[in-house]
């Protein structure tokens, strides 16, 4: 599991690659929290394009990122969702709470 990020005009782009499971999720959540606290973005793009696997741990990661952005009065958009990860997010009905593109 690897996380990279960049910021531009208070827009934060977080790019994930590798396998996102329970083993990876806790450390990832902490990294995303830190990244948001340091950069105080008004919008975050969470780019899942590099994920080769994601289970329901990814749902918890997305929901936590959404709550953090709401606390900053900002927005979260999840982009480039691979097919397998998309099936997990759809099963959870996450599209009702988070912008999935």
């Amino acid at each position, binding site marked *: 599991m690897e996380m990279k990020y960049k910021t531009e005009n208070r827009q934060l782009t977080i790019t994930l690659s590798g396998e996102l499971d329970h083993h990876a999720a806790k450390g990832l959540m902490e990294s995303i929290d830190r990244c948001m606290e340091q950069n105080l973005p008004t919008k975050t793009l969470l780019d899942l394009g590099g994920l080769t696997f994601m289970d*329901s741990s990814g749902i918890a990661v997305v929901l936590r990122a959404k709550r953090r952005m709401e606390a900053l009065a900002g927005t979260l958009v999840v982009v480039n969702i691979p097919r397998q990860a998309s099936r997990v997010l759809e099963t959870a009905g996450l599209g009702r709470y988070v912008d999935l593109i």
Partner: protein
Amino acid sequence: MKTKSDNYISLEFLSRSANEGFARGAVACFAAQLDPTLEELGDIKTAVSEAVTNAIVHAYPDELGKVVIKARILEGNVLELTVRDWGRGIADVDKARQPLYTTGGEERSGMGFTIMESFMDSLTVRSQEGRGTRVTMRRRIQPRRRQ
């Protein structure tokens, strides 16, 4: 009821989260002999990951314990997976199977059983408090026409 098995594997490992990737990878390698599509293989890996994570997080919250996966190929191109632990068990299985129900804190979404149920053809959960849990899932792999 006994069902005839064409082939099987049995995997035993310690309930460390580092073994989650190994478990789903090993089952996917075994399932490959049924010639699944990438989507079918993704569904199987996801279901295994959910069942194994449940055992690691909920069965053995304060200690390490044994997890055993048995994967069997049954007649009709059916893959049967059994994930078993000897941990604390589930007090109310029906409640645990409800979407969004979790006792695992913010790191868990409470969607594990819902995903297993959606991604596999059948899901059976047997549990006894203090004795452990056995999750059994089946998925028929659609036979593909050869070119």
